[in-house]
């Protein structure tokens, strides 16, 4: 329930709703979309990335000298969890064809594809299989399937949304293989939303010029992820899944080819070594680093580990200066602060409204532009609504959806959202939600080419951990597509590569070299990475943990 003091503003939303409804029904845009110049202005002034403290120079490694997101530079300029001399690499604990690091959507798609090509896989994952951002996507997956929407149109939307920084050789497979992926997933048993005439339902997302968002109600990620997981588990002889066993370093061979990793059992605190002919990083994003202090939509294990372990081997990063804030994170009630409100809400006609009941931005600008416009509305124009806890947000008018799409639409298309709010006595079919940007997505990552190869031979990367596909701004629905397209590609190319590769002696020397580099750059720090899990232990509790030793965030 909203506190009484908000009712004045809530009434204004109701008062303007009919007029907004009439406009939304007409052929005219509900609000003029921004020009290139207006986009630049609002981004420069209000996007958190453009604040001075948001970036700093990285002093070591392959991206040395570049300006990176501060928190990313911090985890890169950190010590390893391990001492190389503690390991006897001549007797690895596990041997496999392909080590897949990260049991989310990308990792699962890679494994399912690689075994088709005869490879054996080992999945190292931090929490349970499927405890991943992939489980959480709500809105959908883009795929250009309608007559009016050739895949090249999808290409144009992607590259414009990414401010033309995307690597063209990655955008092409992303868009061109979308229809094939939609079909592949359906053949595995994914239940897509369909219309009465059997066609796939397509909706708009931010930055789309054609309707091309496929969905599974608002449990899209859960449906896809559980299908992929179930398929992974149907092949226990070919895919070995090690849960609560994150990878904390990569292993190279003497020629510098990637040759496996060091795994850490979170529960028994033992370390294990894996020798693998090829390695695929699918560790997802970094929301749990709480960049700039933002709340996040991400799962518990999203701490950017893949970036760190790849960087220590010399893996090059791309666009790690750009962070995606999702425009519509929840700000009220406090218990669900930061939680994602799917963009599909705006795709279905929901509108962002200020305290006076006015629409103040085209509802489907690319995410960074939309987020910046929300921040401007709240901070500069002071047209936001304050919560009792001191947060500020704008309304996201969901009841309008019921007027546009018909009564019962929300219940059918947004069961997760409805449930999320009804727990706190807010019925989103009748009342709007209160939203503000939330830390959502890692736009950049480890640079790959169209075969998912990094610059380290034998090291493949796919999904959110990779960089180049989305330029500096990903559009909604393209990340689920990304981890499927490139997860499959990584599985395909890695399983071909292993047929000819010959590994020499295994080595962890790169860790020693990295430590030396830290030292000679004069970096003195007690930071340890990969971070593995965030810690939400209150300060006063920590102070009493007298005999505990923290290694990074973990005791």
């Amino acid at each position, binding site marked *: 329930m909203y506190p009484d003091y908000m009712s004045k503003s809530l009434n204004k939303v109701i008062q303007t709703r009919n007029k907004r409804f009439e406009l939304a029904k007409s*052929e005219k*845009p509900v609000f003029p*979309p921004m020009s*290139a110049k207006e986009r630049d202005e609002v981004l420069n002034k209000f996007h958190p990335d453009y604040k001075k403290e948001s970036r700093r120079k990285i002093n070591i490694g392959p991206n040395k000298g570049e300006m990176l997101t501060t928190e990313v530079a911090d985890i890169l300029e950190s010590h390893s969890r391990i001492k190389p001399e503690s390991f006897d690499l001549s007797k690895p604990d596990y041997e496999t064809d392909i080590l897949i690091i990260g049991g989310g959507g990308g990792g699962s798609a890679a494994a399912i594809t690689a075994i088709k090509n005869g490879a054996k896989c080992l999945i190292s994952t931090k*929490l*349970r299989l*499927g*405890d991943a951002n992939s*489980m*959480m996507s709500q809105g959908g997956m883009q795929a250009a*399937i*309608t007559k*009016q929407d050739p895949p*090249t149109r999808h*290409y*144009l939307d992607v590259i*414009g949304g990414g401010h*033309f920084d995307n690597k063209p*050789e990655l955008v*092409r497979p992303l868009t*061109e293989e979308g229809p094939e992926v939609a*079909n592949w997933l*359906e*053949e*595995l*048993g*994914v*239940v*897509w939303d*369909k219309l009465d005439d*059997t*066609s*796939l339902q397509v909706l*708009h997302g931010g930055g789309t*010029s*054609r*309707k091309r968002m496929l969905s599974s*109600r608002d*449990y899209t*990620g*859960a449906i896809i992820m559980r*299908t992929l997981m*179930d398929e992974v*588990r*149907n092949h226990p002889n070919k895919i070995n899944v090690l849960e609560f066993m994150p990878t904390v370093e990569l292993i190279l061979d003497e020629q510098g080819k990637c040759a496996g990793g060091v795994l850490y059992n979170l*529960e028994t605190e033992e370390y294990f070594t894996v020798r693998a002919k090829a390695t695929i990083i699918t560790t997802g994003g970094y929301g749990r680093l709480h960049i700039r202090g933002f709340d996040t939509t991400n*799962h*518990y294990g999203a701490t950017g580990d893949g970036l760190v372990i790849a960087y220590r081997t010399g893996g090059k990063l791309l666009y790690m200066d750009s962070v995606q804030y999702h425009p519509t994170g929840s700000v009220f009630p*406090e218990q*669900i602060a930061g939680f994602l409100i799917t963009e599909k809400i705006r795709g279905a006609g929901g509108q962002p409204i200020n305290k006076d009941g006015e629409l103040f931005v085209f509802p489907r600008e690319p995410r960074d532009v939309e987020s910046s416009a929300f921040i401007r509305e709240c901070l500069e124009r002071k047209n936001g609504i304050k919560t009792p*806890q001191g947060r500020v947000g704008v309304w996201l008018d969901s009841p309008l959806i019921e007027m546009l799409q018909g009564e019962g639409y929300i219940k059918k298309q947004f069961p*997760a959202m409805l*449930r*999320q709010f009804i727990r706190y006595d807010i019925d989103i079919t009748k009342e709007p939600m209160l939203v503000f940007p939330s830390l959502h997505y890692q736009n950049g990552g480890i640079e790959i080419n169209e075969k998912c190869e990094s610059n380290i031979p034998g090291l493949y990367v796919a999904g959110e951990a990779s960089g180049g596909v989305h330029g500096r701004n990903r559009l909604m629905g393209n990340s689920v597509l990304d981890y499927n397209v490139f997860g499959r590609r990584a599985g395909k190319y890695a399983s071909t590569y292993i047929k000819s590769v010959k590994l020499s002696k295994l080595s962890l020397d790169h860790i020693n070299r990295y430590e030396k580099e830290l030292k000679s750059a004069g970096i003195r720090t007690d930071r340890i990475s990969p971070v593995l899990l965030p810690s*939400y*232990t*209150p300060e006063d*509790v920590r102070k009493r943990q007298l005999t505990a030793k923290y290694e990074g965030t*973990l*005791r």
Partner: protein
Amino acid sequence: MANKENFVNVFIMGKGYKVPAEATIMGAMEYAGYQIKRGAGCREGFCGACATVYRLPGDYKIYTGLACTTMVEKDMWLSQLPAIPAHKSIYDINKIEPNVATIQKLYPEVFRCVACNSCTKACPQDLEVMDYIQAAKRGDIEAVMDLSFDCLCCGLCAIRCPAEIVQFNVGILAKRLYGKYLAPKSKELNIRIKEIKKNIYDKEYNDLMTANKEDLEKQYYARDMEK
């Protein structure tokens, strides 16, 4: 947390802690000083990692909930379940049929359902779990798919079930069967896949991929919008 004065007592695995009254169970455990390893995934009600059982004072009932979305209550006695033992049948999705025989073969215990409704009562998503198990017995794959659609696989139904059924895995099987075999196929999708195989977009792609930034920008900002 909100109001510093507003605290309640809860018993985490039997031990009392003062925690903010407006905390979720997960928030309360972390506030008390637990570093969660098992028992947290999405933290938003999607993954089912955080199944929790609890009792309230003066009430004989056992309650179930998700730690990430259930708020603490005064004197709540709670315990998170680190993992739920559950078997999953291994099958080849290409070699099974969407009918009751498949259910019989892969999850025969479904037919032991005594319709006690314990599963439905335990479901933190308020799904009609028993109804979908009954539908599975009839081989009504579509109904199982529909009723189990929002299932998070938290496993609370399975541990409450006197017939020892693993409801959520039956739900996953049914959804896969429906998606693959019963859902009506999209003609548009097939046409598009064929077009792409015939390379009819090659030229357009090549033009776009070799265009310079100004050109692309022009095309991008001039593109028409589907209403």
